[in-house]
């Protein structure tokens, strides 16, 4: 696969899988207002995934006389073909886990889209220009909640710290780089993830301090999302995502 194709697909998968996890929370948030907030985040992420998948189809071009569309990438791939980072597929658990996963992701996604506005790839730069505004709000929301949970009651503090400790091992993968990414970095289509990591760490450290939470010690980071090695619960997530499209191929309404 072309590096640009793989790279764009990864970003689309990151957005789609996180959106799917968030959509599982509908009707389960602490209040209907937060239900709306979480599904709004999901809708933004689905919009980003659609734009990215549409671009993937364009890069891929003609296959057996037909051009694929965005739905192909969401509904017609096997689970090992998804290349999202493991962080975004982590199960929802309690509200603290949902917020911590979201915050650790948003603290990455916001500076990511901000810098991608300067990509030499015009389509990715345009997607970034739209996504950066959405993601700025996502970060504001998840950050607000993390501070309140950490610096809240004994129980919310305990749960928030447990969620941070649990999710931490999936954060290293966000900043991994490989030959696919290197090729794009040297063409200024993508950017050095090391710099992104510094920005992320600064946001995370400041927020954890404000939330009276401890940053975990160095742990062995889990990875494998990019090579399609996902966690056990991922197959159920994909099953739910794809069940309709699999049962009724090409269904419309």
């Amino acid at each position, binding site marked *: 696969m072309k590096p640009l194709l793989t790279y764009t697909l990864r970003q689309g998968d990151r957005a789609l899988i996180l959106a799917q996890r968030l959509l599982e929370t509908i009707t389960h948030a602490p209040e209907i*207002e937060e239900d709306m907030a979480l599904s709004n985040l999901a809708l933004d992420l689905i919009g980003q995934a659609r734009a990215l998948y549409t671009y993937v189809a364009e890069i891929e071009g003609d296959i057996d006389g037909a051009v694929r569309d965005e739905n192909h990438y969401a509904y017609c791939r096997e689970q090992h073909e998804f290349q999202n980072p493991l962080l975004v597929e982590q199960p929802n658990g309690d509200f603290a886990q949902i917020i911590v996963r979201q915050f650790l992701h948003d603290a990455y996604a916001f500076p990511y889209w901000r810098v991608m506005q300067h990509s030499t790839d015009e389509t990715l730069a345009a997607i970034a220009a739209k996504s950066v505004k959405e993601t700025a709000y996502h970060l504001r929301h998840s950050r607000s909640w993390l501070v309140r949970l950490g610096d809240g009651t004994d129980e919310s503090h305990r749960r928030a710290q447990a969620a941070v400790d649990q999710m931490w091992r999936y954060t290293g993968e966000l900043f991994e780089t490989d030959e696919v990414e290197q090729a794009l970095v040297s063409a200024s289509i993508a950017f050095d993830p090391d710099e992104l990591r510094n920005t992320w760490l600064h946001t995370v450290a400041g927020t954890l301090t404000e939330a009276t939470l401890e940053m975990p010690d160095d742990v062995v980071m889990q990875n494998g999302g990019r090579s399609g090695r996902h966690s056990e619960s991922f197959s159920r997530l994909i099953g739910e995502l794809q069940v309709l499209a699999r049962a009724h191929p090409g269904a419309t309404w």
Partner: protein
Amino acid sequence: MSGKADWPLWEVFVRAKRGVSHVHAGTVHAPDAELALQNARDLFTRRSEGVSLWVVKSNDITASDPNDRESLFDPADDKTFRHPTDFELPDEVANM
């Protein structure tokens, strides 16, 4: 996840565009002002309804008593001279 959270109620005011007043749009539940603003954004500006939001704790609103309606409002009924009906509004005044 647990049941309903015990969050206070907030009144939401939305300004549709520059130059017009904030108008009461409804209410949200939220644990504090900042999150009330975020919830108001998600509930009342989904379809580009606004450019500015206010939230006020419902408890902080002092409302008139419906039983006082006659004494408060009826005396204005026969004072038509208070209506600026004899003035022509210049076209330059867009919102009034």
